[in-house]
């Protein structure tokens, strides 16, 4: 059944009352994303027609707004200043109760960032991080505008995480009672499960559409875009709050240590001296929306590719087969060739295996003029949040024309199959890609573009 999309009356659209040029001017002039903070004193309830996206019918998908919080900065301005100044957010690991000698991407502001009083039953480091992240760049107030305008039922939530609130569960296990049950204050039924950050985001924003957590290890934060695109195309919802949240915890610190994948120094992606990852934490959020409902949005979501390695639980396919499949599928779905991609934000964890194999795969997928780098030297590997954080870095590269060169890559490995960008570079970025690969051989690639570009 082919239903044409409802006409959009931009004059009646209180959020997008600025033209694209005006919005750009505001953003570029203030550089604090105040465009997201436009005061909407009167939000009209507009009836949204049901169901347009049917199989085969193209639906434009755009990114309406986004924000990121990581060790490299709380909020977009801080993140981009760190990247511009090549200031790493990594620090010596000093979590209470651990003497593991490694560098981590820790969000130090978390200690002084309590949850709102109405959300305190959901206390966990992961949810604190989500809460801090939601409050940056006017994101939360923007969400309230969107749900008021579209109807809370027409907005879904998809959150990627690898470890959810396991840090809180770990703490609870240090204080079990004699019978083996949790004790106060850890008796939190809505925290000790995989959907904890999804539960939190729904409660914090009032979203009433379908809500789900995706947990596919380190590809989680990318796969939420693929799933959200399907939900919107299907007509299930008109917009999806997509997020990636993962916080530092013992499970991942000691787990990656057991695999001998943790570096004792700040990670050096693609450098010949690299010897492992730096684990980080991050919360990133964006709103993916039907394009006709967001005429002022600057970024288009062009496509995604998902695949499995079918090789090993914790080692990438030696020829990068799954990575190639994910990238090629993402390009095909974006109707682009590899030469069309101006920048690729790589998975680039600084593990020996990933970095070499990823360049092997990349060389089969993009053109030689494409710039490629890893930003994990700034943030650490933020695991289930990495796909979202790096999608946001890609969006900022498209918006600003600044392509981050790989921090800490001073002596690129000779045997790399694709040149890695080391220095920050100014370049018009019209279309960009980001890779995320996880345990279980789970891969996802996303492609974004300047809208109309």
């Amino acid at each position, binding site marked *: 059944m082919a239903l044409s999309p409802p006409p959009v009356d931009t004059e009646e659209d209180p959020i997008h009352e600025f033209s694209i040029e005006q919005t750009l001017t505001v953003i570029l002039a203030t550089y604090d994303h105040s465009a997201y903070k436009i005061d909407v004193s009167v939000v009209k309830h507009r009836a949204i027609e049901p169901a347009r996206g049917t199989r085969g019918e193209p639906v434009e998908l755009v990114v309406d707004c986004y924000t990121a919080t990581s060790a490299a900065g709380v909020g977009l301005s801080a993140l981009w200043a760190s990247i511009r100044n090549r200031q790493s957010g990594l620090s010596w690991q000093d979590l209470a109760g651990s003497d593991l000698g490694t560098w981590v991407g820790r969000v130090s502001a978390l200690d002084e960032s309590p949850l709102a009083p109405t959300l305190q039953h959901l206390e966990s480091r992961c949810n604190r991080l989500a809460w801090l992240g939601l409050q940056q760049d006017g994101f939360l107030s923007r969400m309230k505008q969107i749900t008021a305008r579209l109807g809370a039922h027409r907005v879904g939530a998809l959150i990627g995480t690898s470890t959810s609130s396991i840090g809180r569960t770990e703490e609870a296990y240090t204080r079990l009672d004699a019978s083996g049950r949790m004790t106060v204050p850890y008796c939190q039924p809505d925290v000790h499960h995989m959907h904890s950050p999804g539960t939190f985001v729904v409660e914090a924003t009032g979203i009433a559409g379908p809500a789900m957590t995706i947990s596919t290890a380190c590809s989680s934060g990318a796969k939420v875009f693929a799933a959200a695109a399907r939900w919107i195309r299907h007509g299930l919802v008109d917009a999806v709050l997509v997020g990636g949240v993962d916080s530092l915890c013992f499970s991942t610190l000691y*787990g990656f240590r057991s695999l001998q994948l943790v570096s004792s120094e700040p990670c050096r992606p693609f450098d010949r001296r690299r010897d492992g990852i730096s684990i980080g934490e991050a919360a990133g959020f964006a709103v993916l929306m039907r394009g006709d409902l967001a005429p002022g949005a600057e970024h288009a979501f062009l496509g995604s590719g998902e695949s499995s390695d079918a090789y090993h639980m914790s080692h990438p396919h030696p020829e990068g087969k799954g990575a190639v499949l994910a990238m090629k599928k993402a390009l095909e779905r974006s109707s682009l060739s590899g030469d069309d991609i101006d920048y690729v934000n790589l998975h680039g964890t600084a593990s020996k295996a990933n970095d070499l194999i990823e360049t092997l795969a990349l060389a089969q997928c993009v053109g030689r003029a494409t710039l490629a780098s890893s930003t994990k030297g700034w943030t650490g590997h933020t695991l289930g949040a990495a796909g979202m954080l790096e999608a946001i870095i890609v969006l900022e590269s498209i918006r600003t024309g600044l392509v981050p060169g790989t921090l800490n890559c001073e002596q690129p490995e000779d045997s790399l199959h694709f040149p890695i960008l080391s220095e920050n570079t100014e370049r018009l970025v019209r279309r960009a890609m980001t890779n995320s690969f996880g345990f279980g051989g789970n891969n996802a690639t996303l492609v974004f573009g300047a809208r109309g570009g």
Partner: protein
Amino acid sequence: MQPSCLEHVVAEFDITGVGVWSSHFPDWAAFCRGLNSGVWSYGADLDPDVIPARERRRAPASVKMAVEVMDQACRMAEMDPENVASVFASAMGDMKITDSMCRTLAVHPELVSPTQFHNSVHNAPLGYWSIAMGSHAPATAVAAHHFSASIAMLEAAVQCFEESAPVLLVVQEGDAPLALEGSCKSDHPLAVGLLFTPAGTTSKCMARVGFTVKPNEIAWPSLPAGLADSYSGNPSGKMLALLAVLAQHSSPETGSSPHGVLEFPLGQHTSLNLEIRSAEPGRTP
């Protein structure tokens, strides 16, 4: 907002294969027999040999449950799993591993083992499955606490419809250790596998299912008599209501009495409506 605002084009898929495993019914045939007789057979330990020996040594029970029912569903549908996307759902993931890792981390964190760690990821069952089957198809592991079963059915249905490709769904939960009982009261492990294929694309159709999402708050459908006590606390137990309708379709006594409508809550504000009927094999709607 009027309730009709959420209803959209009726999308359909076919269920072409079912797999199930629990201590009460080791496979689909046993489940159907139990429904008719009210007597449940007890299954033996699981060790599915579709997992290569090298991987099977390291595979935890949660992986074996998932792979078992995924394999059962594909065999019933005579579907080669190589190009079939997969969706895995569990509210808690592998609770035995969580319990054991948290106990280790509380005392001797440096003793966490590499195998324990890589088995702890939520998508571990899909990782093992993809390796066993040589499948490079997309794999998605999801959770939504009490609503994990219904949201996973929706996700698999949307993937099947939007990608025009088969999707193998597995919904499962183990039994909860004492420390995690507050979040999950599951005391009987259960795994359910379902193969969704685009409507009318194979000759092995058990049932055609139309699905819609509605903005209302509803209660869960009731579980089959005799199973409610054991599985009402298990988030994947919600799948048994669907299996009971499917079993009724495939039962020779009732022939093709095709209709069933099931509504599952997706959360506090929305529900998944499944309209189940028999479909002539190979007939497109």
